[in-house]
């Protein structure tokens, strides 16, 4: 079998080009520049695009946040009208949840997970590209509502019946609805793809309990998405039917019960909050052991607490609905469940602290952001547990206390974790480290700004300031802490922007220095993504890595001497794969993912403005599906074993 009987894939291989079954264009090869990015199926480029798109949406969501803070800085302010204010806080929440935090999680999952499991790509590279483009077009479509009649104005959870056409006649909620439906398709296909990759494409020897914690958290996150997204989809389809086709799902006059929306939304919504935070948990579970120079404390507990969070996240949704009149039995049950879910989270916090305990800590930016997560998430977690006490929650519902709580877990938790991830894996993605000095400014400005902004909101909430209130009177006594929060928010904005400035400045410095090689393993890392060159070569691994233990890469570099002390036995440079993957065969780029994704917003605009537009949209959809299905999976591989275009079953694009 070791004898090659026919030539391998030819680099120029024109005669190997497949026929085009429908007379459509061939797969783009050797694409460069923009075309390369538009047609790529490389999981690393897709991950980077997720990150860039999320940063773009972060600017929009951040600008909305600052507008809110300016409006609330002083009593009786008229900076924004009530209607503008409603639209801006709704879009702030929606953009931040669906278009910033979720996609940054997807960015890390896409970029990192295949590297950490030792795969050359995800299971379905074209579907991966499709997932990104669908998310991106959905997000852009949602944001075009700013120019087409104003954004949504019903709050990010858009409660019925306020979301109906009677109470919200403008198209804002239609954009919210359709844009998120489209983005949801991307999340669903992404989840299927990433789960398949983790389950089926790990490197030889990597059993489930040898997977890095980040991969575990990705797996749990994607399962949450897989099962939560369809519930939101149904809620949104019912709303779509109501708003576009005059159905009565949330029509109280016809006897409907608006609680149906709340249930469906929060059955999705609570798993949603865990799927936003778990990737960040995974990230810092990689960063902390590296910079504490100790293995993660209690790896199995780390894994099983993540799984437990994934399961229990399904049993607590009604704690968002304690004031909706659920009845004492439901309230009690959900209170207890909510208290219990603090246990696995507490286990994780304990494990991170125990990992750092007695370690040789390197307090660089990535590590500081990780410690920031542990600290601030603990505060957010504690205020979260206080919501489990139903009588107390009844007081806090819809006050700034809630706002403080979820910003502590989502900003102080998830986003700080993502920042740690950016600093940690930046060299792997781009070949240079971000500057430490500006990194420290970045971290400390964010910590100070963050706590100044959201710390006072606990007090405001307990004083009784309702969330979503457009303005307040001086006599209410909210002025001082609101002003503090506004000042904090600007410090926070500057601090957050520094990560972009740092990336740019460090890149310039690196280029001016002649692009010095950062080496495969700049942090003395533990997992196998550090065993390849930085930036990672297009084909990832020259040969399939053989994994024999948890933190496999670390154990190849270090071994115990006769006294039982850990000693370095090899340098990273000696062990790393050289990155010359000649003959490695990568999937060819494709036009179809972006075209298929593009058909969805056309249908979306059709649903909102005129159904006629759905016809060209549907035509493009069907045509792209057939083009996709009949496209040879890979031009170069064709002559080898089967007949033509035999790789792709019909319906794989569905």
């Amino acid at each position, binding site marked *: *079998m*070791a*004898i*090659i009987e026919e030539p*391998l894939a030819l680099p120029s291989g024109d005669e190997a080009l497949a026929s085009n079954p429908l007379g459509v264009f061939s797969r783009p090869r050797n694409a460069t520049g923009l075309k390369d990015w538009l047609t790529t199926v490389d999981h690393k480029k897709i991950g980077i695009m997720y990150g860039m798109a999320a940063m773009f949406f972060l600017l929009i969501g951040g600008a909305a946040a600052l507008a809110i803070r300016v409006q609330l800085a002083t009593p009786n302010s008229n900076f924004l009208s009530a209607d503008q204010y409603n639209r801006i806080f709704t879009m702030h929440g929606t953009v931040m949840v669906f278009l910033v935090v979720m996609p940054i999680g997807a960015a890390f999952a896409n970029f990192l997970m295949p590297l950490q499991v030792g*795969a050359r790509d995800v*299971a*379905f590279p074209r579907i991966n590209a499709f997932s990104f483009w669908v998310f991106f077009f959905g997000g852009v479509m949602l944001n075009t509502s700013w120019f087409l009649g104003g954004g949504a104005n019903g709050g990010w959870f858009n409660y019925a019946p306020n979301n109906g056409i009677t109470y919200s006649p403008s198209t804002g909620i239609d954009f919210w609805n359709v844009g998120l439906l489209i983005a949801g398709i991307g999340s*669903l296909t992404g*989840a*299927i*793809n990433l*789960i*398949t990759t983790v*389950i*089926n*494409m*790990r*490197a*030889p020897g*990597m059993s489930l309990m040898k997977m890095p914690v980040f991969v575990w958290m990705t797996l749990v996150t994607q399962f949450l998405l*897989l*099962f*939560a*997204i*369809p*519930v939101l*989809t*149904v809620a949104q*389809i*019912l709303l779509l*039917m*109501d708003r576009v*086709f*005059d*159905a*009565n*799902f949330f*029509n109280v006059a*016809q*006897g*409907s*019960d608006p609680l*149906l929306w709340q249930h*469906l939304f929060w*059955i999705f919504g609570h798993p949603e909050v865990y799927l936003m935070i778990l990737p960040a948990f995974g990230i810092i579970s990689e960063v902390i052991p590296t910079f504490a120079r100790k293995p993660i404390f209690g790896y199995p507990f780390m894994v099983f607490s993540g799984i437990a969070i994934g399961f229990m996240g399904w049993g607590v949704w009604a704690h968002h609905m304690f004031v909706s009149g659920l009845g004492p039995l439901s309230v009690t049950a959900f209170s207890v469940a909510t208290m219990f879910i603090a246990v696995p989270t507490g286990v994780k916090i304990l494990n991170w602290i125990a990992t750092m305990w007695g370690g040789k800590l390197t307090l660089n930016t990535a590590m500081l952001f990780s410690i920031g997560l542990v600290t601030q998430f603990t505060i957010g977690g504690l205020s979260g547990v206080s919501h489990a006490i139903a009588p107390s929650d009844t007081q806090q519902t819809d006050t700034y206390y809630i706002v403080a709580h979820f910003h502590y877990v989502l900003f102080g938790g998830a986003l700080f974790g993502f920042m740690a991830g950016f600093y940690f894996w930046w060299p792997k993605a781009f070949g240079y480290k971000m500057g430490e000095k500006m990194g420290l400014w970045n971290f400390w400005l964010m910590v100070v700004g963050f706590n100044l902004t959201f710390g006072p909101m606990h007090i405001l909430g307990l004083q009784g300031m309702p969330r979503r209130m457009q303005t307040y009177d001086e006599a209410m006594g909210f002025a001082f802490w609101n002003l503090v929060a506004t000042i904090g928010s600007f410090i926070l904005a500057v601090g957050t922007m520094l990560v972009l400035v740092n990336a740019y400045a460090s890149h310039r410095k690196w280029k001016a220095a002649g692009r010095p090689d950062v080496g495969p393993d700049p942090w003395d890392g533990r997992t196998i993504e550090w065993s390849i060159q930085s930036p990672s070569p297009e084909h990832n691994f020259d040969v*399939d890595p053989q994994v024999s233990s948890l933190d496999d890469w670390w154990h190849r570099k270090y071994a115990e001497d006769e006294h039982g002390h850990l000693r370095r036995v090899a340098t990273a440079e000696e062990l790393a794969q050289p990155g010359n993957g*000649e*003959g490695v065969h990568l999937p060819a780029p494709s036009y179809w993912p972006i075209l298929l994704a593009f058909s969805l917003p056309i249908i979306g605009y059709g649903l909102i403005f005129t159904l006629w537009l759905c016809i060209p949209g549907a035509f493009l959809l069907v045509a792209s599906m057939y083009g996709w*299905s009949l496209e040879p999976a890979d031009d170069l591989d064709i002559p080898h074993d*089967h*007949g*033509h*275009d*035999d790789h792709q*079953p*019909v*319906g*794989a694009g*569905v």
Partner: protein
Amino acid sequence: MTDLAEHVSEEAHGDHHDDDHGHHSSLGLSNMKLAMWLFLGSECLLFGALISSYLILKTRFLTELLAGNPDVIAGIDNPELVQEFIAEGSVEPLWDIPFTSLSSFILLMSSLCMVLAHKATEEGDYKNQRIWLATTAILGSTFIGGQIYEFTTFFAEGLTFDGSIFGSAFYTLTGFHGVHVTGGIIMLVSLLFLSLRGKLQADRSETVELVGLYWHFVDVVWVLIFTIVYLIP
């Protein structure tokens, strides 16, 4: 020819993996089949939400109807039907059980044809493969035809989509299922074309199996809908 040497060594390496599980495939399962099962798992939650929304709204509808809510009564475009609903205390008078039973039976039968098509593909019996694929598609289309007939009948009897919560929920649930069946029919027809062009050989029987998985799932959903929506009052 260092290049060649490297290929050869990689060959050996790769074969070694094949011996354990198939390269890079930690569980040795087919990616496509795993993905299809994950998709179907997600669909369970989707149809679960639709079915439960239907049940909740139907119950609310009947409660309001029996309580004499005038808006709800006006939502049904047929006073006689309203009287029958109230007399029975259920929406049963609307159903045509023999007809729906027949279309349920047709859909069940199409599932049988689907597995036989898969079986024939595995065995390389392409004549039977085409026969069974075509039969499955035809039975599925018959089911859809039946659903269109049922919708028009119900509409004519006064159950409109935009009149009542019951109408909205019923048409959305069964319509969603109908859209899934239609998607399945399109896939079946595509398979049939592939087969006629000689591109659906035994080595690709998994493609037929995947479409089959989807088709059976849609059938299973109808098993649930038939009992829950039609038979249980």
